[in-house]
């Protein structure tokens, strides 16, 4: 490390040293910074995911005239730690009927896609360092950001299907069947509603979509109100939450993870909350302007105080995402659960035509009004 630092300091003294400095520079840009970003992002996301569980339970408690978890630590803030510890210490049971390899693989399949999607989310305007470099608040600012999220999140279903099937039990099997048909039914409206936003924004890249909203002067929730509604409903269905929590359906079929215990169950659990966070974050940046500060001219602020704008942007983004998380909990506190056939009917007969028509509508809107 010290040698590297020295070589960077005496830049260009000898050709060999210069080459080494360049290698160092390249390594830093291709491996170092992305890795650091990934670590920071993963830590942040994991913390948020852990506390979204606490948030949900507390909020549900408040909705239901009770207090929610408040025993572990102040305000119950250490509850996620206790839960995690409990899951880790529990016995890991593989049923006799199960297919051991797939049974063990399935939670991993559920776990990783849920976190992969965060890589393309643009959290704020780039952070400026004193040396004049700009670091984007994004791990991979690729062309097809939102498309990548959709593609990767569609993989999460394999964890559920394989987990349910490989348990070798009827209840999880039914859970995984429900889950599979539900995901298929709601993935299309979800994608179509996102496509409407992509049409409005003119790019797959999330930062471009936010920039387009800033340019338009209005968040896409206004021109894409229908898309927003479709997105909201199908996102609830995609994350298996009330009123579309049939794959779990804890009073009916207990769920695809009936046979799981310990940390393997924990993986599913964390994946579900990670998906919830991801879908809130995506919704915030697609429809509510992401890190745009409402009522503030972001560009001017960024020109004056770039880092202040960035920091405020992260907070605005978090607040907007929390709005969605609150909404999900609110819904969970209020509604009963749909039935399997009703759920599929809503997906295919109601949401899909609306989403299709909406794409056409938004295209016309784009052609005539927002040129």
């Amino acid at each position, binding site marked *: 490390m010290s040698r590297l630092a020295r070589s960077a300091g005496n830049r260009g003294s000898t050709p060999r040293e210069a080459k080494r400095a360049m290698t160092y520079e390249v390594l830093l840009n291709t491996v170092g910074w992305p890795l650091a970003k990934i670590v920071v992002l993963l830590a942040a996301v994991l913390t948020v995911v852990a506390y979204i569980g606490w948030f949900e339970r507390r909020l549900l408690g408040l909705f239901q005239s009770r207090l929610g978890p408040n025993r572990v630590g102040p305000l119950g803030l250490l509850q996620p730690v206790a839960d995690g510890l409990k899951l880790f210490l529990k016995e890991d049971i593989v049923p006799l009927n199960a297919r051991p390899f797939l049974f063990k693989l399935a939670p991993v399949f559920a776990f990783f896609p849920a976190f992969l999607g965060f890589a393309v989310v643009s959290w704020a305007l780039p952070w400026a360092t004193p040396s004049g470099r700009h670091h984007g608040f994004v791990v991979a600012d690729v062309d097809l950001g939102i498309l990548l999220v959709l*593609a990767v999140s569609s993989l999460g279903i*394999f964890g559920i299907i394989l987990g349910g099937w490989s348990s070798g039990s009827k209840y999880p099997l039914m859970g995984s069947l429900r889950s599979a048909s539900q995901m298929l039914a709601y993935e299309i409206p979800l994608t179509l509603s996102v496509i409407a936003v992509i049409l409005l924004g003119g790019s797959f890249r999330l930062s471009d979509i936010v920039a387009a909203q800033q340019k338009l002067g209005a968040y896409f929730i206004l021109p894409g109100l229908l898309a927003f509604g479709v997105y909201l409903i199908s996102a609830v269905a995609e994350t298996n939450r009330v009123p579309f929590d049939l794959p779990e359906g804890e009073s009916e079929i207990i769920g695809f993870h009936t046979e799981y215990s310990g940390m393997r169950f924990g993986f599913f659990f964390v994946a579900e909350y990670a998906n919830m966070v991801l879908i809130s974050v995506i919704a915030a940046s697609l429809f509510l302007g992401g890190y745009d500060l409402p009522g503030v001219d972001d560009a001017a602020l960024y020109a004056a105080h770039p880092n202040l704008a960035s920091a405020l942007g992260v907070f605005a983004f978090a607040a907007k995402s929390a709005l969605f998380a609150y909404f999900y909990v609110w819904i969970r506190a209020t509604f009963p659960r749909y039935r399997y056939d009703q759920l599929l009917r809503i997906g295919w007969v109601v949401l899909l035509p609306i989403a299709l028509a909406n794409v056409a509508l938004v295209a016309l809107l784009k052609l005539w009004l927002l040129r």
Partner: protein
Amino acid sequence: MAFLWILLAAFIAACALGVVLSRSPITSAVSLLAGFLGVGILYLCLRAEFVAAAQVLVYAGGIMVLYLIGVMFTDSEALRLTRQAHFQAWPAFFLVLALFLWMGHRLYRSEFTAEPPVLRVAVAAGADQEASAKTALAERAGLAKESNPRQVSVALFRDFLYPFEAASVLLTVAVLGGVFLAKKEV
């Protein structure tokens, strides 16, 4: 990069063999899934991110789910015990071998150039169109820098619009036929 390619190719080939050789249908399906993902990564290496995303989204996320459901709900233990269609194995082997040899031959004989087919067609048609084709090419080169989805959309909606639409008609017909068949059985 070449090393990565060899690794991926070996992985995909292994997955493909797993699909064919495995006795348990669920293992076949899972190896097919792994193969799809491998191909997706291959596309990523070729800088065809859009195609990679589409591959994962459509094949891995959509079609494989249907396969898996289909396989899951058959009695796979009984299926494993029945020897299926063994009389077809040898003819199929020779057929595939012939196809493989033919494809290898074609690949070996063909020369790879950086020029896209449009230009070659234009050159063949005459110097008159060459200029317009060249401007198209220059435009494409500009696009290549710009973005991946745009390239795909230009290819689909400008260069190959008719094949694209024909394919969509074909798919619609297939869907209708599927619905028809399914309805009849119920």
